[in-house]
């Protein structure tokens, strides 16, 4: 036996093509996911230099960022249509498989990768999108890249990357009843800040992580970038193997068994050392609500916005509160909301919709609230409709949409108006993220569902107790 190592080092070492002292490693890329917004300039670069896509078979494209989530037959935004058409033409020219707007595999790129079994443990996965970290839930080394790097992967199927430092985010104990993976990751970011992961790849470990389903693990890994890390992953285990069994791009029979064994062997060895470790007690995590303009500006639902006296940077705090239209020391449960968005690569999978629907069934959306549900993929939408969830949402007064990124970043028509206040299951609460002047509070699907009904934030644990 060699020295015990982490999954991060194991996956890294398997992919090194070329190594030279004092330089980054040249890493092989197993899967390159692309979408309409960050790829056109990369294709243009290829054409200008008379280069081609080396491995179109390891590349997969879809449209998610700019597409409308209703009335899809007419795309009114001319520039958006141009961008979509550019992707179609580029994929055709370079022979890249594309799930276009009418394709049954279409969806948010980080939802369809796992759904189709394209995402597998031990892979290196990149995409011109910072939430590529989502795929780390499978024990893949997955990270977001810029457009120049997209072009580089097109041309060479590889990337120059500096060997990352390893960060163990250890989640001890168990999550309480009614506490979700979203609450956990928001609590981690609130506790350790938005830069704890800068320069690192995170591995999430501990009992509470082991107990999460694959969809919950994806929610956690998704927001690694909000903790500053380009990638965050979880060692594969039986949960991982069972999720992947039978997925379209995953082999079957003996080949699967052999693959499963290989996947499990990637898990971090007992006694492996990390460059840095931080620990959080899962039993202390409450339902979370962000109150400010970066994802670390969050509090438990029983808490309040901070006091100016205790702030390290009072000017930044005041600026965030001003933008959000909140007072210092304002109780979270005193915040009235007028929009609810259930969707995004963080929380738009089947289990997210099911849990939200359980709370909503038989209830009505508050009269001051406009609420929308945007399934993460066409496939999620179909299953949800088969289960009758669309009817539950619609009966309560939610709008039921087609799949896309939608109101997470508001590049299509799904926009929160200036001064509007949204309980959102997405991942970023930056100024203007959901629309110019819009105010975003990041929450779990359960907290968003309860806020839709009450018109304000409530502790979903009490809420569950009162409706049951």
């Amino acid at each position, binding site marked *: 036996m060699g020295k015990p190592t982490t999954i991060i080092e194991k996956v890294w070492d398997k992919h090194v*093509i*070329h190594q030279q002292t*004092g*330089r*980054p490693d*040249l890493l*092989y890329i197993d899967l390159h996911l692309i979408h309409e*917004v*960050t790829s*056109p*300039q990369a294709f*243009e670069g290829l054409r200008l*230099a008379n*280069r081609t896509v*080396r491995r179109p078979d390891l590349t997969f494209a879809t449209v998610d*960022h*700019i597409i409308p989530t209703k009335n899809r037959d007419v795309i009114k*935004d001319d*520039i958006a249509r*141009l*961008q979509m058409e*550019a992707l179609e033409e580029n994929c055709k020219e370079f022979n890249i498989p594309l799930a276009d707007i009418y394709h049954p595999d279409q969806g948010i790129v980080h939802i369809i990768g796992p759904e189709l079994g394209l995402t597998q443990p031990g892979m290196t996965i990149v995409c*011109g*999108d*910072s939430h590529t970290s989502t795929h780390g839930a499978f024990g893949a080394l997955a990270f*977001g*890249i*810029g*457009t*120049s*790097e997209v*072009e*580089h992967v097109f*041309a*060479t*199927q*590889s990337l*120059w990357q*500096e060997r990352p430092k390893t960060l163990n985010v250890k989640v001890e104990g168990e999550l309480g009843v009614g506490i979700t993976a979203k609450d956990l990751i928001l609590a981690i970011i609130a506790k350790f800040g*938005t*830069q704890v992961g*800068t*320069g690192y790849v995170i591995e999430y470990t501990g009992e509470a992580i082991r107990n999460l389903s694959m969809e919950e693990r994806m929610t956690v890994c998704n927001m690694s*970038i909000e903790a*500053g*890390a*380009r990638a965050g992953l979880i060692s594969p285990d039986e949960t991982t193997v069972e999720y992947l069994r039978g997925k379209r791009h995953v082999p079957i029979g003996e080949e699967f068994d052999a693959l499963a064994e290989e996947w499990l062997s990637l898990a971090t060895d007992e006694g492996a050392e990390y460059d840095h470790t931080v620990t959080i007690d899962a039993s202390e995590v409450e339902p979370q609500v962000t109150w400010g303009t*970066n994802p670390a500006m969050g509090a438990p639902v029983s808490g309040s916005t901070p006091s100016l006296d205790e702030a390290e940077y009072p000017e*930044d705090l005041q*600026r965030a509160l001003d933008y959000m239209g909140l007072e210092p020391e304002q109780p979270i449960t005193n915040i009235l909301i007028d929009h609810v968005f259930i969707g995004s690569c963080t929380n738009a999978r089947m289990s997210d919709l099911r849990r939200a629907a359980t709370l909503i069934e038989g209830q009505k959306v508050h009269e001051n609230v406009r609420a929308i549900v945007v399934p993460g993929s066409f496939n999620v939408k179909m299953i949800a409709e088969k289960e009758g969830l669309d009817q539950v949402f619609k009966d309560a007064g939610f709008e039921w949409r087609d799949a896309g990124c939608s109101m997470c*970043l*508001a*590049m299509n028509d799904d926009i929160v108006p200036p001064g509007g206040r949204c309980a959102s299951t997405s991942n*970023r609460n*930056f*100024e*203007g*993220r959901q629309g*110019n*002047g819009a105010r975003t509070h990041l929450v779990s699907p359960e907290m968003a569902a309860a806020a839709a009904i009450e018109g304000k934030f409530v502790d979903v644990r009490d809420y569950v107790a009162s409706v049951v």
Partner: protein
Amino acid sequence: MLKAIETHTGAVLPLNRSHVDTDQIIPKQFLKSIKRTGFGQFLFYHWRFDDDGNKRSDFVLNDPKFSDATILLTGENFGCGSSREHAPWALMDYGFKVVIAPSYADIFYNNALKNGMIPVILDESIIQDWMEKAADGKLTLTVDLKGQHVSDHNGKQVDFDIPAYHKEKLINGWDDIALTLHHEDKITQYEKQKRHA
């Protein structure tokens, strides 16, 4: 081919904010272009313009004192959030050649370098000092990439770190893909081994 760059001297614009995210640098409604150019007019759009498209007089980019600035001096974790390379494209299209901050988000740092923009990392105390001195619009800094130091016209000079290979690439204006293709045989060999594994 990037333009080779060894030193840059320019006027400084102080943007005294930390955690400036790429949604602020270039808001999403301007990402629908399929080109790399023309984003400068939208840089910091919602900080620069009000809802009617009028310039906000209280935002530093609209202050005529800083109209010639080519060096952006700012706070920690600059460029956090989305991976959009439109952020450095917008900064460069506007006229910035250098950003100086105590720290950067990883993806932004890489994206800046890929476009020949120098992301300099300096201690917060040094930045704060220059931030104050820059307020009157008369601070000029020289960034010497070869010597790895930044100096002002009063003779103050501070060193900065940058990975050697990034520096080498900037100074020579090398194209990443062309460099990688020198290793094409190794990529092919890796793919062959993988197929037989």
